[in-house]
């Protein structure tokens, strides 16, 4: 509780940092914030061309011209948010080693800043996506609000995992390297660019037990089929998020002091 009190006292600093990180990303670039949009857009274009046109992969049962692009966006954008939060929190202590060693301030500010920042980036791109849906007449309607609990679970999951890895990463620098590799596999073992139905039966159990499958699947269900998520499928990841947040917080509190000596 005292930790959150300290965070509240430093809210000015947190906000200012978020603003600064956002600005510094773009102040020296001519196109500024446009880059936040161009990057995932390029990815979506590439996947749309390769998967929808070249490989002729059609979503079973849906014939809309945009449906594959929407399917992709629903997965790629949220997955992007997931990896950005995860990789940033995982490296946050190492990156700010100097600050941590030299200045006394609530250290938990750092992951909070990083998460808010990733959130802002996500909101920009996702806002545009929503705008596109409305304009092209594909807005899913009331089920859109199901996003809120889903995103909440996702943030909890990535923050819990990120903090856990972030603390471990200070002591075992292999973790950071290792997770870059893990994320690559994880991406392809989650039905983000392909529908789960096209997988051979042998691989399916792995993908089905992947906690992110349920989450990404729910996003796709909302945007492509305009249906409420199947809430039962989300129990595992919700539970996992709570556990990971607990572990992360515990690790952080136990090792925060030692961490500074190690940086």
């Amino acid at each position, binding site marked *: 509780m005292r930790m959150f009190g300290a965070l509240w006292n430093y809210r000015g600093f947190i906000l*200012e940092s978020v603003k600064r990180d956002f*600005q510094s990303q773009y102040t020296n670039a001519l196109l500024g914030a446009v880059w936040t949009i161009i990057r995932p857009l390029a990815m979506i274009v590439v996947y749309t061309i390769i998967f929808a046109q070249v490989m002729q992969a059609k979503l079973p049962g849906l014939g809309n011209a945009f449906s594959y692009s929407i399917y992709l966006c629903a997965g790629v954008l949220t997955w992007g948010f997931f990896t950005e939060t995860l990789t940033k929190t995982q490296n946050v202590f190492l990156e700010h080693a100097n600050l941590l*060693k030299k200045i006394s301030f609530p250290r938990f500010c750092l992951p909070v800043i990083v998460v808010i920042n990733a959130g802002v980036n996500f909101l920009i791109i996702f806002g545009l996506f929503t705008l596109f849906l409305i304009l092209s007449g594909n807005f899913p309607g009331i089920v859109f609000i199901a996003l809120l609990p889903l995103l909440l679970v996702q943030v909890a999951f990535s923050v819990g995992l990120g903090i856990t890895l972030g603390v471990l990463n200070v002591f075992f620098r292999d973790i950071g390297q290792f997770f870059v590799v893990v994320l690559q596999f994880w991406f392809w073992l989650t039905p983000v660019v392909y529908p789960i139905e096209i997988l051979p039966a042998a691989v399916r159990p792995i993908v089905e037990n992947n906690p992110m499958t349920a989450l990404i699947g729910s996003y796709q269900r909302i945007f492509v089929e305009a249906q409420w998520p199947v809430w039962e499928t989300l129990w595992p990841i919700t539970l996992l998020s709570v556990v990971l947040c607990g572990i992360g917080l515990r690790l952080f509190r136990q090792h925060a002091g030692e961490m500074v000596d190690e940086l």
Partner: protein
Amino acid sequence: MGAIVVEGVGKAYKQYSGRWSRLLEWLVPTWCGGRPRHQQKWVLQDISFSVEPGEAIGIVGVNGAGKSTLLKMITGTTQPTVGRVHTTGRVAALLELGMGFHPDFTGRQNAMMAGQLLGLSAVELERLMPEIIAFAEIGDYIEQPVRVYSSGMQMRLAFSVACAKRPDILIVDEALSVGDTYFQHKSFERIRSFCRQGTTLLMVSHDKGAVQGICDRAILLDAGRLSMQGAPDAVMDYYNALLAERDVSTVRQQQTDQGQVQTASGSGEARIDDVYLLDEGSGARLESVNVGQSIALVVDAHIEKDLPEVVLGYAIKDRWGQTIYGTNTHHLRAPLKGLRAGERLQYRFRFPANLGAGSYSMSIALHTADTHIAKNFEWRDLAMVFEVINADKDNFVGLAWLPPEMECRR
């Protein structure tokens, strides 16, 4: 507000024998054969002291004595391994100036940011901003990105932000070389004024003058332990002697008749027997000296072992321990070479006592080369105390007698 209590504090860093040992220690629980696989390297041990609100404390010690670690524990960036550090009130540390400055942002933005990092609120900073800019003396540059600042300007701005609001405890690291001499004086004056208003000061320094000039008390750290605390001049003398005595620890301190602490040290291959002042004219021994009187400092010494070289140095100090003048036979280009055991020496230094009225002391050292650091045979602080009185000159103030030739045109 502003008290510091350090109780039995120790700090150890963990050292693991290999890359995998830490992982093993973390993963193998105690009940199936897990054991600590690290060694503790203690950098600070058994440190206890307390500082009253408003006190000014100097911390001295050689490099690696643990000064920075101690300061970091008091500011709260590192945790002590054992013991407890307790502070009351707002702590500001001038350890790393300019931390968190981003080159692409303006001075004002950076000042806001740095201030908030130090725990000030945006509203407060907004209010203090004109003062910060004025103190840093960077004028219109405040709206320019910090990237175009000179390093001095950056330091000045950082100092102004760190000292924008009077803290209850101020921690200053020695290397407070903020900008040019002018700004150094200005920043030192700011620190002094905080002290006068009741801020507790903790300062790490090697500068004798700074410690004696500002601090009420000094603490000496040696090899991670608190080896002495007390009056600044006594601690600084002991520290100086210690510098010369890294290997042979023969530093002795004793109270003189006047209640001052005398420090003597040395390996003893050459010894000082007697130190006194003579009047140049009559050759009489002097206890008190008239301003401007021609006097001679006489040092009797003898050699215990054959030595290739001996240099004798002396320093006249005022009653606060500040050196007024000092030299040695190396600088006077007259070191003695090839000395035999049993030889007796008598040095005589003649000079006019161009000193202001007051009490002075003489420190004498026998050593080689240009300082006492390399080899120190005998070092004696307060080897002799004498009084300077103004018997026949016009009244003046200060430590030196610099009589001018005066003229005035009108």
